[in-house]
Every structure is written in structure tokens, then in C-alpha cells.
């Protein structure tokens, strides 16, 4: 589904130029769950941001199914993103002023879904995520795990083809972290493609394939057999 070729990204400040991505090639198949690992500053978050159309690389090609995404303008990128992608962040990034329900509803509003259908979709996902009795609460009233559930719910409510997760368990204790990982797995099993950046090899073990980055290069790729066997 995703074909990334020769991606290069350079960060420039007044003094230094940092090469974050240095000729990355990456293919992701539909329905795959890919983890990206590597030390701090290896470019994994940058790669995720480029995949999420939140950042623009200097050169290379990024094909999503058959569409070349790097030639799109801002508006087109924004439109493509909101129709096809969902995001889960390490720090949840929920909006404090909105309730759980409203937070989840937000992407639907930006996708111009009519009110009645919006309500239906949000309620469905809330039920699925087991947070029904929390829908009127504000994010600060929830535990970290619950907040991340809401964030995942928000990422899924538009039924995206691709979910991008940036260290989704980084701010959670292990039991809550596992909960979230299981949630992602379930999701993956229903056919959603997931790309996740993580530090933790435990989390990575939930995925089908693990990609190791260093200094903007892919240095190794590992098929996660146990998980693949499970799949079979």
C-alpha cells in the first residue's frame, strides 16, 4: 500500500544541517503492522511525520496505493490526511476544553460528516473502546490509559486506511500500555494498516515487522515470526 523510495529530509538551523532521513526505502503492505525502532534522533519520528503528511521531505517519492503524495499542495495534503489517516501520539494530544465525545467527534466534523451520522459513528467507537461511561468527561478526569483509548478512538472513528502511532505507550505504565497495544492488535486484525514508532521491543513484539533505523538509514528489517505464525 505504501511505497517510499529514496526519501531525504534535512533539518536546517542557523548553524547546523542535520540529515534526519538519508535515502529511506520502505514498503508497507495493506493490513500490515510495522514497528519502527532505533535510538533517539535516528529519524524515526521524522519518517512517521512524513508518512502522515505532517512534514515535507526534500526529495524522494511517497506513493500511497497509487497516488504520489509528495507533489500535493497543502490543501490536498490536508484533505488526503483527514480521509485516509489516523494518529495516535505519545502524549495523547487530546483537547482539554472538549469532552471525550467532542474530542472523538472532531475529525468527523472536519470530514464534513452530517450530525446524525457523526453521533452514530462516535457512539459505536465509544462502545468498542469500552469508554461509554466516560463520554461526557474531560480528558483530565481520565487516567492515562483511558486517555490513550480516547485518542485511539479518535484516530479510528474516520475508519482510516492507515493508523500512525508515535510511541503510543510512552506515557503509560506497563499494564495500561499492554491494554493499548492489544487494542492496536485487534485493530490490525480487522484490516487496518498500522505504522508505529517505539522504543520498546516489548511493544514491537506485537507487530508483524520491525524496522531498525540509524542516522536516517534502514539498517535492518526483521519479520516477527511469532506474530506472523499467530496470524496464520
Amino acid at each position, binding site marked *: 500500500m505504501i511505497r517510499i523510495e529514496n526519501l531525504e529530509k534535512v533539518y536546517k538551523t542557523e548553524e547546523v544541517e542535520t540529515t534526519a532521513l538519508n535515502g529511506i526505502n520502505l514498503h508497507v503492505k495493506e493490513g500490515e503492522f510495522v514497528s519502527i525502532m532505533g535510538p533517539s534522533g535516528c529519524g524515526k*519520528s521524522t519518517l512517521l*511525520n512524513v508518512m*502522515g503528511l*505532517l*512534514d515535507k521531505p526534500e526529495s524522494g517519492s511517497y506513493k500511497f496505493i497509487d497516488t504520489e503524495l509528495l507533489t500535493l499542495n497543502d*490543501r490536498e495534503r*490536508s*484533505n488526503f*490526511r*483527514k*480521509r485516509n489517516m489516523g*494518529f495516535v*501520539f*505519545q*502524549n495523547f*494530544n*487530546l*483537547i*482539554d*476544553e472538549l469532552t471525550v465525545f467532542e474530542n472523538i467527534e*472532531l*475529525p468527523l466534523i*472536519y*470530514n464534513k460528516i452530517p450530525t446524525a451520522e457523526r453521533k452514530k459513528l462516535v457512539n459505536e467507537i465509544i462502545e468498542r473502546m469500552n469508554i461509554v461511561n466516560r463520554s461526557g468527561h474531560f480528558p483530565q478526569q481520565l487516567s492515562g490509559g483511558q486517555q490513550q483509548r480516547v485518542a485511539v478512538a*479518535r484516530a479510528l472513528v474516520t475508519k482510516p486506511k492507515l493508523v500512525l502511532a508515535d510511541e503510543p505507550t510512552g506515557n503509560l505504565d506497563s499494564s495500561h500500555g499492554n491494554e493499548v497495544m492489544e487494542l492496536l492488535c485487534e485493530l490490525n486484525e480487522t484490516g487496518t494498516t498500522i505504522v508505529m514508532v517505539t522504543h520498546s521491543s516489548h511493544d514491537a513484539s506485537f507487530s508483524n515487522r520491525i524496522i531498525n533505523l540509524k542516522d536516517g538509514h534502514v539498517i535492518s528489517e526483521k519479520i516477527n515470526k511469532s506474530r506472523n505464525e499467530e496470524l496464520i
Partner: protein
Amino acid sequence: MRNLWKNKGFSLINIGGLAIGLASCMILLLYVVYEFGYDKQYKNYKSTYIAYTNMKANGKTFSWAWTPGLLSQELKENVTGVSNSARSSYPISLLIGNGENKLKNKGMFVDPAYLKIFDFDFIDGTSDNILQNINTVILTKSLAKKLFGNHSSINKIVKLDNLEPLKVEAVIDDIPQNSSLTFDYLMPWKLYEKRETWTKKQGWGSNFCLTVVQLQNSNTLAQVNTSIKDLFHRMDKDQENELFLHPLSKWHLYGDFENGKSVGGKISQLKIFLLLAICILLIACVNFMNLSTSRSEKRAKEVGVRKAIGSSRKSLISQFILESTLLSFIGTVVAFILLEISLPYFNNLLNINLIIQYNDWRYWLTLICLILFTGLIAGSYPAFYLSSFEPVKVLKGFSIKAGSAFSVRKVLVVFQFVFASCLIVCTSVIYQQLNYIKNKPLGYNSNGLVQLSAEGNLKNLQKINLLRERLVKAGAVTNVSTLSMSLSNGGNNTSGISWPGKNPNTSVLFNNRAIGYDFVETIGAKMVEGRSISKQFEKDSNSVIFNEAGIKAMGMKNPIGKKIKWDTGENVIVGVMKDFVIDNPFQKVEPMILYSAFKDNVSVILLKLNPSANVTASLSKIDEIVKEINPDYPIDREFVNQSFEQKFENEKLLGTLSNWFGGFAIFISCLGLLGLALFMAEQRKKEISIRKVLGASTGNILTLLNKDFIKLVAIANVIAFPLAYVIINQWLSAFEYRVAISFLPFSLAIVISVLIAILTVSIQSIKVAKANPIDALKYE
């Protein structure tokens, strides 16, 4: 100090706003001080008074600073408490010349005592034994210079009206601009009596001079006023007018009277300006508070650290106050520069001469108070707010709640916009009213109507006829007539008219004017009935015309041919004229009687320019012919519509000032809004980024950010409208003719304020809305 430098942009907005606010405030204060200083240059101003006459007529009381010539002596000799008193004529523009160097300047005829009451600054000569001789004159410095150059003028002879030789007895300094006395030279009252012989024979019913009175003690005013109230009646049983003294210091600002009592005057306009000055300063302060608190998030950490290492709340408060005072000091310095730059423009605009009194200690005192006040007010809220942070909370990942602090800031913004939108409404109504009055039909056609002042040969009716013939023949004008007063000024009136069926107990005041032939045609007015004074009727010396208001006041039906009595003579009504505006375009037209001009009651010659001829050519022809007929006088002519325009000066001034300072107020408010938007955008950066990641477009984000501000502005408008309505209604109520308050100014205020708010906020939020969402989300 380091703090200011670190936040250059912020400091710039902050100091800039404060400087503009302070500069506006200072200019307005200078103007207010200038107006308050009116007539207070004289040593004895506190015990000096102007005698006023109250006259009941037409169902109301008229109050004038016109008195009989006999009054001054009577007051001085027979009223206890009065220490001195003097007569003066009103300033008259007369020709004064040194040889061929002739100028038309304002002169006044005064009693010698006048120079004891007002301590003019004598440059040459003294106030003793002055103006005793009939052929003497006192010049002001600038007139002396115009007439004699740098030579001494003392004991030299100048000629008045090409007629009277006058010896220069003294030269005094120029009269300050903020003085109600306006003259270029003073002449003895005796000369006035010689020139206007009628003044000698006038009794207690004829008011033709100004009487200035000095009391021994200003505390006795009430007593004196009671004792002189019926003085006219005591002197002459037929006189019902009442007399009172009005303080010199209130002459200028409290010039309006109702029912014989002072009801203010220009002071109300001045109060508006004072209010404006204070409000602008407050707005600037509010701005300061807004901008300072909006930065608080960044400074919270500093506060936390300071507190943690043992700084007390008090020392924190004083630190913040000190900082704001420093800022207000810098703002003041910038304001000074702005002030010095803008003062010439402002003076030009108002046609006055304001200067900064650098050597006056009161000025510096006011300034220091202003700096301290501003620093204190502006710094107080941020100081107390910031110093109240609890160190532990602040140091442990601080985030200011969108709660209380923010709502105070919202209140401040609402306050600013209430003011701004009030100003927009008021200013537009002022302009509407001005336009309304200007476009109100005058009752005559002022286009191409030229007024020539009748002097020298032109006082002579034969010469006027000659002028008429020559001008018409030359094709420069179509009609020529005369009037006993300038068409655009007030002037003579009389209550001595009686008619069959008149109630002897009521008094009706008529403006009286002597007109030449063809008057109605020349000014393009209309007759309602009958005919105008005309050459064809030999016996027109007895005929009179009334205006409609006059006929109405008399309650007369079928007036043509009826007889009236005026003083001792009997006159026949031959015509009724449609009402036309002479004096005050803001009030209803008063009753008027017009009669045929004879001998010397011509003060202006009215010329209707030939509409088919070129105006410039016509004017130069007029100048040429007038110069030929009247070679001794400079040509003094004006367009009636131009001199009429001067009547709107007060209202125009108000309009211009509220426009300018309203503009400044709005500009400063915008800076405040910008600050708030800056803060909002900063505070909501994360939220905006999240929304963008979730697919919000730039438009979505802009709407989101603007929505709150528009709400604030809308609330401000809702508060402002009743306020503005009350204020402007109050202002309008002073006019008999006034424009109806429509929706237009209000909708204008909404549109302008919302537009301004959106623009200001968008400048800031568009940057945030366009920013890459990653930047805000990355480092959390």
C-alpha cells in the same frame, strides 16, 4: 531591563501603545488647559466681572453682555462693593494707517478705567493718565510693528478711517490667544461718542456697550447681584430688563444662559475632551495590563524561581511596578517626541497655538504624576496577578488555566471596545448632524453671493448706486443690494414694535435690519405675500416687511396694508418674506422686521455674481471697480457661504477631534487585541496543532480563533449602544434642528469594530494556523 530587551516585539507594542495613548492624552490635556486658561492672564481676573442684561421676550429670556452706556458710571458711583467699572465697545474692524501703510484691524473704544481693570503688559508708556485725550490710541506690539516697522511708535500719529489723527500713547504686548478680549488697538470712549453721536443720547433701554466691573471682594458677588438686579427699573420705570454680573473667568466657557441663569456652554465640550483624554489613557493602560499578563506564562517560571529562593510577594510586586513605571517612562519619552512632531499639525487643525511649557513646574509635576499614575495602574494587575503564583505549581510543569486571569483580560478588551464603538457612533452622528444643518435650506441662495463691507465712500447711497450701475454694466453681477448687518451675523433687535391687538404685557423681540432695493432678489429669497422694498415706490421709507416668523409672533391675519408702530413712528406692512437663516443655523428663525435703508445704515453691500460669467473674472472686475470708487480702503469682501461655514467651527472641531482621537483609541485597542490574540494563539498552539492534524483547514482554525474575539466585540457593542445613544442624544438636544438618530451609526460601529477585530486577530492567528503542526506537538 533585560526583560524588555529580550521581548523586543512585545516591548515595542507595549511602549508604542502607551506612547500613543500618552501623547493623545497630553495633547488633549494641553488643549483643555489652554481653554481653561481663557481670560485668566489678568492679575485681577478673579474679581472682574462682565455685566449681563436679561431680557424677557418671545416667551423666553435672552441674556446678553450688552448694557446701556449709562451703567458703568452708576455702578462705580452708587453700588457698594464695586471698586471699578469701565465701558468698552465690541471690537470693530476699522482702517488704521501710518501714511500710506493702511491696515484693517480690530479696534475697541474703552474708558480709561478699562486699563486699570486689565493689567495689560505695557512695553512703552504706562497705564496712568492714558486715553484721556480724545485723539489718542494704544497699539499692540504686532500692530505697532506692522505700522512702524522697528521704529518707535510712541507719540507718532496714526490715522483712523482716513479721518481721525490719533497719537500713539503706549504700546502693549499682544493679547494672548486664549483671551476673550480681541483687539489690535484701543481708543478712548470719547472718540466713540464723537463718531457715533447717537450713543450720547441713549437712555436705560438701549444696550450697546460692554461693561466690565471690578468688585472689591469676589465674595460679595451674590450680594452685589441682588442689589443690582432691578437697577434698570429703578433708573427708568419703563425698563423691565434685569442686570447681573458674570465672572470674567467664566465668560468663555460658561457662555450659555437659560432663563437668565448660566447653564454652561463650551465647558461641556471641554468635559468631553477631558473624558476622552482619560479614557484614552485608560485604554492604553488596559493594553499594558493585557499584554503584560499575556506574557505571564513565560514569566511564571521566573516568579516561581524568585519565590523559591526567598523573594517575598512584596518585593515581587514592587519589581513589577518598577518595571511598568520604567516602561511608562520610556513611553512618555516617546510620547514627547510624538507630541512635538504632531503639535504643529494639531495647532494648524484647531487654529490655535498650543506650546509645551517646559519652564513651568506645574507642567512637570503633571507629567510626573501622569507617569506614576500610568505605571501604577498599568502595572498593578500584572504585578498582583503574577506575584500570586504559587512557586511549587509553577515550577512543576506550569500551565495557566484558561479561567480567571483570562476572563479579566476579556473584560478589559470589552471595555476597550465599548469605548471604541461609542466613539464611532458619536462621531458619525456628529458628522450626520453637521451635514444635516449644512444641507438644511437657508431660505436664500448663498451661492455666488458676495458680501462687500461698506466703508468710506461705499457708505454713501449715491456711490452704492454708482457701484451697482457699473458692476451690472460690466456683467460681473446681476443684482446688488445692501444690508445693515453682515448676512451671516447676529445683530440689532428691538422689542419696541406694537400692533393692533398686541398684549401689552408680552414683549416680542424682532431682529431688525435695514435693506436696500432688490434685497430679496439679490439673496435669492422668496416673498410669501406682498412685495419687497423697491425703487418704484417713492414712499417706501415708511414700508416694512416681516418674515413669516414675525407675522406668526404677532398673530396677524392678512398682514398686507396693516399698520404697526415702531418706537414713535408708524409703518405699513407691504410684504411677508419667507423665513431665512441669518444668525444661528442650529436654531429656529427668529421674528424679523426689515425696512428701507436710509442714510448710513448700510454695513455690507451684497453682490450676486453673474452666473454666466467666470467667477475669477467677475471678482477681479469687482475689485477694480470698487477700488476706483473707494480708493482709500483695502477691498474687504467674502463669499457668504464661506463666512457661513465658520458657524460650524465648533461642531467641526468636535467632529475632527473625536475622529482623530477616536482613531487613536481604536488603534491602541487594536494593539491590545493583538496582544491578546498573541497570547491566545500561544496558549492554544497545541490545540490548534491537534486540530490541524485531525484535518482542520486554515479557514477552520481562523474561524475558531476569531469566534471568541467577535463574541467579545459583539458584547462590547451591546454595552456601547445604549451608552452612545444617551451621550449623543444629550449632545443633540442642544440643537433645535437635529438629525434623527438612525440605525446607520450603530451598524457602522458594528461593522467597523468587528472588521477591525477580525483583521487584528487574523494577523496573528494566520501565522499560527499556517504553522506546521509538528513544531508544537514535537516537544511535549
